[in-house]
């Protein structure tokens, strides 16, 4: 009996390991269960999953303006052009001397060259995921499928258009890559552009204009196609694609004010009797941009105060306005010696901070942008209140109440002509308040809150078509398109077609599209066209592809218009502004080249490693041609 009980107990106990052993031997036990994450297999089943992936592309486009931190990628586009230079004069690592800083492995910590590259290829990856798997999903009909595919093509083309004009020849990836691959080769820029043109013709055909704001519209596709046509030197096609947008009946330039009237959180301007309610200020007032009534928007990115999960601050004031409130050794003194004269704490008697926001001059507009281009006193884009000059501000530091100048306009010099601030680079320049001001209600020191931003706008389509006409030699039509944009801003139209040239168009772009356009990308595109066509520029100079890296329109234009680079301008920190012809293309980061250990990604002329290049691919292999 005793033995029997014990025996039974033994048996039961012996069974336990057997049972556990058996269960632990099955591989089923070890199948991973991702509980809170999506995988491609469970996500890409219909158009919603596909569009969700393209949303990631749209989010990356938004990052060009909305990247958090002191700077943002669009600033980098601006400092490689006539309109801006870097303004951070209080550091000795700032990107002033591009010859030193812009290297494949160097200290580009304040430039976003590498981020452009990384983000572009991420977006290409997201788009390729949709392109490769397009037929795995179920669609309502052919039109829905092709609209999804067209949107994916748009995003891939958008990024490759940028890459080919920021970096030149780059690797082209046309499909989803599902495993490690280390043998990429650069593809010739023209070959990529040719592929983009084909894709965008498809997209412009299938995408719709009846899409939510933030999505890819047919107009946006045709607009991008216009840029690609221009880049390929196919000007008639460019005119056609631009005209399809301009004359398509869906879009038109806004000629009158609409939506809500702009109102800053501070009352300083209103206290001066300035009310902004013209077409330009309403067009750029963030809450109006996405309205259906806005017929000018082709493609935009959104950010809203009340959509907090997707909310990002644009920080536009912080990044582009002068450091008007400077309280350090560069402070702005009153003529009678009180300093600092300005104050950036909130809730001051004179609420400059709430009205304009806090600027840090991460980029500093050149006099080209602040003065030279303004040729019409009626230009709404430079009208007092829309455009703010330093003299429009007043001494507001409570400390200056002891001064006779409290509440009086700021002065750059005293009566003896002596400068009242030691850093005019950082502290003293005008800015387009109508565009840069985005209310920032959550910040004590407003920098630019959540607000929508334009990516493609019909005004640019006009200027692209103007270019196409001009390249063709049709100056009259070119001038007409420039005038369409000018007159909307209440300028008088240009009348001398003979004097209408690429400079005219670039000036108009600077007036109309500051911080919207990809200025460096476009300058490089234009430089390429000069080199490809041999057409003389307004100076009479011609360019060729053969010596693109040493002589190009890009550097000539910057030397001509940007009053900082290569002029011996030295900031307070002792750094000199310098730029070279080879900066027409940016360096490809050494890490990107090094990690590609079994292939060759070509480096651009002028940078270390250029000597290791091999001829780029001149065709896209069929398996990549999706």
């Amino acid at each position, binding site marked *: 009996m005793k033995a029997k009980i014990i025996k039974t107990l033994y048996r039961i106990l012996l069974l336990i390991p057997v049972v556990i052993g058996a269960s632990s031997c099955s591989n089923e036990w070890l*199948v991973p269960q991702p509980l809170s994450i999506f995988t491609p297999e469970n996500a890409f089943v219909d158009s919603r999953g596909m569009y969700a992936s393209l949303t990631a592309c749209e989010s990356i486009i938004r990052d060009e303006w909305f990247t958090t931190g002191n700077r943002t990628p669009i600033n980098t586009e601006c400092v490689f052009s006539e309109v801006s230079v870097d303004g951070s004069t209080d550091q000795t690592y700032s990107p002033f001397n591009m010859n030193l*800083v812009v*290297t494949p492995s160097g*200290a580009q910590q304040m430039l976003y060259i590498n981020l452009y590259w990384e983000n572009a290829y991420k977006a290409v990856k997201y788009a390729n*995921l949709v392109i490769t798997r397009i037929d795995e999903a179920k669609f309502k009909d052919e039109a829905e499928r092709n609209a999804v595919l067209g949107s994916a093509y748009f995003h891939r083309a958008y990024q490759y258009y940028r890459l080919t004009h920021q970096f030149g020849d780059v690797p082209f990836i046309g499909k989803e890559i599902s495993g*490690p691959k280390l043998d990429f080769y650069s593809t010739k820029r023209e070959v990529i552009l040719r592929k983009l043109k084909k894709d965008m013709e498809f997209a412009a055909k299938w995408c719709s204009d009846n899409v939510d704001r933030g999505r890819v519209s047919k107009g946006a596709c045709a607009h991008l196609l216009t840029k690609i046509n221009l880049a390929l030197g196919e000007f008639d096609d460019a005119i056609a694609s631009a005209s399809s947008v301009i004359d398509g009946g869906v879009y038109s330039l806004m000629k009158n004010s609409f939506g809500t009237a702009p109102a800053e959180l501070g009352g300083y301007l209103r206290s001066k009797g300035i009310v902004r309610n013209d077409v330009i200020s309403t067009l750029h007032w963030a809450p109006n941009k996405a309205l259906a009534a806005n017929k000018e928007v082709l493609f935009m990115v959104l950010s809203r105060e009340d959509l907090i999960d997707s909310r990002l601050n644009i920080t536009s004031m912080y990044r582009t306005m002068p450091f008007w409130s400077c309280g350090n*050794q560069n402070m702005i003194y009153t003529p009678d010696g009180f300093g600092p004269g300005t104050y950036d704490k909130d809730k001051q008697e004179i609420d400059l901070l709430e009205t304009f926001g806090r600027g840090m001059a991460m980029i500093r507009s050149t006099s080209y942008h602040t003065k030279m281009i303004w040729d019409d006193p009626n230009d709404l884009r430079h009208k007092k209140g829309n455009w703010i000059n330093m003299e429009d501000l007043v001494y507001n530091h409570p*400390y200056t109440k002891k001064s006779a100048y409290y509440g009086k306009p700021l002065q750059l010099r005293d009566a003896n002509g002596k400068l009242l601030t030691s850093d005019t680079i950082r502290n003293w320049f005008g800015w387009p308040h109508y565009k840069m001001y985005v209310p920032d209600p959550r910040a004590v020191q407003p920098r630019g809150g959540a607000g929508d931003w334009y990516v493609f706008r019909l005004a640019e389509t006009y200027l692209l078509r103007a270019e196409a006409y001009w390249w063709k030699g049709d100056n009259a039509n070119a001038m007409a398109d420039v005038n369409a944009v000018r007159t909307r801003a209440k300028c008088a139209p240009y009348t001398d077609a003979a004097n209408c040239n690429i400079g005219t168009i670039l000036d108009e772009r600077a007036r109309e599209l500051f911080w919207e356009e990809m200025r460096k990308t476009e300058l490089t595109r234009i430089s390429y066209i000069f080199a490809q066509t041999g057409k003389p520029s307004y100076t009479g100079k011609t360019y060729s592809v053969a010596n693109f890296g040493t002589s190009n329109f890009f550097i000539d234009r910057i030397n001509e218009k940007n009053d900082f680079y290569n002029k011996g301008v030295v900031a307070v920190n002792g750094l000199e502004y310098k730029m070279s012809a080879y900066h027409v293309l940016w360096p490809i980061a050494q890490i*990107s080249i090094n990690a590609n250990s079994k292939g060759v990604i070509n480096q651009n002329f002028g940078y*270390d490693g250029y000597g290791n290049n091999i001829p780029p691919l001149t065709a896209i292999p069929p398996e990549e041609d999706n």
Partner: protein
Amino acid sequence: MKKNYLAGELLYHSLKKPLLIMRIAIILLLVGFQQTRANDAYSQKTKLSVSFSNTELAKVLDKIENQSEFYFLYNEKLIDATRKVSIEAKDQQIEEVLKDLFSGTNVEYSILDRKIILAPAIISQTQQSVKKVNGKVTDQTGASLPGVSVVVKGTTTGIITDANGNYSLSGIPANATLQFSFVGMKMQEFAVEGKTTINVKLEDETVGIDEVVAIGYGTLKKKDLTGSVSSVKSELIENEKPQNVQDILRGTIAGLEVGFANSAKGGGDLEIRGVNSLKTSSYPLIVLDGVIYPGAMEDINPNDIEKIDVLKDASSSAVFGARASNGVILITTKKGKAGKAVINFTSSIGMATMAKVAEVYGPDEFIKWRSDVMKANFMYNPSLKTKLYTFDDPNNLPDGVTKDMWLNGKTGDETQIWLSRLAMNPAEIENYKNRKYTDWGDLVFQNGLRQDHNLSLSGKKDDVTYYWSLGYNNNNGIVVGDQFKSIRSRINLDGKITDWLNVGFNSQFANRDESSIPATWQAIETNDPWKTNLNPDGSLFIGDDLPVGVRNPLYDKSFTTRRKIYNTFINNLYANVKLPLGITYQLTYAPRFEWYNYMNHQSALNEEWAKFGGQANRQQSSVYSWQVDNLIKWNKTINEIHQFDVTLLANAEKYQSWDNSMSAQGFSPTDALGFHNMSAGKSSSYRLSSDDNYSTGDALMARLFYSFRERYMATLSIRRDGYSAFGMGNPRGIFPSAAFGWVFTNEEIMKNNILTYGKLRLSWGENGNREVGRYAALSDMGTGKYPYQTLGGTAYEINKLYVNHMANYNLKWERTRSVNIGLDFGIKNNALSGSIEVYQMSTLDLLIDRALPNVIGFASVTSNLGEVQNSGLELTLNARIINKENFKWRSTLNFSLNRNKIKHLYGDMVDVLDASNNVIGQREGDDITNKWFIGHAIDQIWEPRILGVWQLGQEAEAAKYGNFPGDFRIKDVNNDGKINIDDNEFQGYRQPRFRWNIRQDFNIYKNFDFSFTMYSYWGNYDMFNQAANSRINGIGTYPDRNNSYKYPYWTPENPLNDYARNFSGGGGALYNVWREKSFIRLDNLTFTYTLPGKLLGKAKISNLKIITTVRNVGFWAPKWVFWDPEYSGPNPRYFTFGINLTI
């Protein structure tokens, strides 16, 4: 006489063999219901039948016990139970059976009802035994030791000391040798050599080879070890009042590095034998009471720890297979001990004080420094550099500078003008004029009170062993507001249900309160002394240059309410069953629960947070994980020659966690309810998130230990692990090991009196590493919201989906293969003992984030590639330098070095070129992106080399690199006029090249103990970018708007070569400044006074100690000038006073 003797033996027996007694009692219970209640004449009535030939005596006795109600009491040391006997009995009385069994031996037996006592005959029958010896046995402190076994060597003749420690043996050979042994003490032998009195002092077995060591799923005597295992007993350092497990381990074990944490919470990272993984953590596996412990170290009360064993080589840790490549730390908690219930109470009160301050400029030093900063800023500006004197003190102008020149056209108050030029704002200038300055250090640093109280109750009563403890810990840090509180409790309970079954559990509950919000002490650098602290109304002033960090260090803290509580409940429930043939089976179920609760409220009364109406967050997460271990063990010694120990394991585990969080802003009507009423927030501000995780694993393991004559020993093990992170392609990995030991001093020819113990060990094994992330093999799609607006004007958000992570379904285990050679030695009976270990570890199939060309859209993919090798040497020495009754000095030294090398990476071959670019061969390519190079250490620095500082007169050369005098001069290796990646050079190492620690223990006049420990890291480098006096790589402050730590800086008048000018620039170069961080630290001083037993005995107190200890006494770091070399930031020195009371 005989009766006394029996009583003595019974006492001894009950101490020594309690299990046997219990087993007997239980058998009696079991058989009781089968038989009628026996009467007094049981021994005469009962008839036995037994039949054995050439069988161990013990087995025969067992059989008799099983057959009847008889039970035997005997001392194994005195009765040779392994003697082989043959007996044939049928229906015989016990008396006759015993006669058969013991005739011709010196064993006497007495039958007391059912109880049969076996004992050696005291009076020997042999005529040549003539001697009588007596004496007294005491312990180290001179206290008498009862119950010590005294045996004539080579015989079973012996006796046990009485209550006063006295013994008397008569009739023994004149040339006999006596052996004295007692549990927990070292056995000693003495030759009689004609002496009639032999007094013996036994020593504690603390560092001896008979020590029992945990080896994972079992224990082994240290002398049987084949692998590399180091141990530390908590009693050795309990006087130092360790606050956490790391404190016990710091500086006690060769090859184990324990990091340093400066917070009130304490702790620190652990690393055994260097970094052997590139991606995964190098944190060792923690095993608590035999079960893998995934919890937090701070939940283990150091006072509950009995001992810690560290498995360092692959063979010893191989039983933990896939989890063990970083080594294993086995923690054993205290158990009740036989005897009366013991209450132990320890209490300590301490103070945390600042040990090393990196000083910032004081009020007037600041002005001078700031004026130099301004000069430096304009030094190279063509138009301003001629007027640098405008930054000088107007009352102390340089020669040749007139007041007018200084005024530079300005009029007004000179102080005002001057300080404005120094970028001081009006409020600061006002403060300066009123000499109103703030010592920010005073506001953020404090002396923190620490207290730690622990109470435990333990004992063993009949079949139940128990240990219960409760501890309360409340530490304030040296930073204002830094506090850590915990309540920890543990119950270890073991009950013997029958002779073949015991069950028990070890449970640990901890409540950790980490709600504290430390002040932002960094304000000492960002806020200069003239900055304002308080508003006129006495409230805190927020700060006047927030973007560059000039913020009141207490401001945000004072508007934040936080509750951050961890509750953990960790259990091992086990049942242990004795099966036939000496096999035991143990089932352990170890459920772990963890609850985390975080609530945070940022009040709208804060000037900044008012903008969004305050914010409240709540986060709750819980973890439930379990493990089941099935262990089968078999232990057998055959003829005292062959010893076998077999362990088999089947294990399964599952981890699940659930996490949810919410937040809201814009509370209405107010946020007075803080985080208690989330729905008062604006609904459009609500945010929700959840994150749940799941993983499973299993394991099978077998281990065989075999020892031959305690001379040769071998351990073989194999483990197969499964883990769901690798579940797509390679769910399982197999990890074998083998180890051999040779106690060469047990060889007859090697026996000598100097090297009394010597063992060589050789081991080989493989371990895995699975800490790659639960879903690393999968391609997860990230989500995030993105906004759109319909043409109808409705804005909405949808999820974006993007591929975060490249899938690698073939991901598999990282494996570390290691060879370890060890020599253990004891000289002069372990007066000097120690070990030397040499090892080489190769980690293969490294889990690596392989850099990809980023055109793929992924910077990297998790892969198994490459090989990293660690090799090293460890030396441990223990010495009893002086061992007198009134003065003892024990010394321990550990030394270790580890060398790390990358052997392979991705296997991509690249061409090797000669000077004229001809291909002369191929070699494996490096990973320049991650700065990993074949043949170099992971921690080797590969960066541009700083040669010094450009000096005046070198302007032209400096300008080539975009530099000015005062900037760091960087070596242009290839002289191409550019500093880029081609100029990188291999420099020093970030990890110490050598580490050592020593420990000295002194015992003076028995009752006074004094110990100190020191340790050192030598030869490591760390970044010291502050030497650039500029914001390089984002490190440092804005000198024109902040204060600074006091570092030297270059000026034309003070042309240093190791510090750059203020605002130094790098041209286009990216570099870091590296400085050597070698140091020696006096880590601990401890004084203990143990009250004499005489005093305590009256109060029924068995032990009372008074302890004073100082931790982090000081350090010497010859080349490091910043904060502490181990931790950059304020680091505490602890003074602790405590008592330890045992009743």
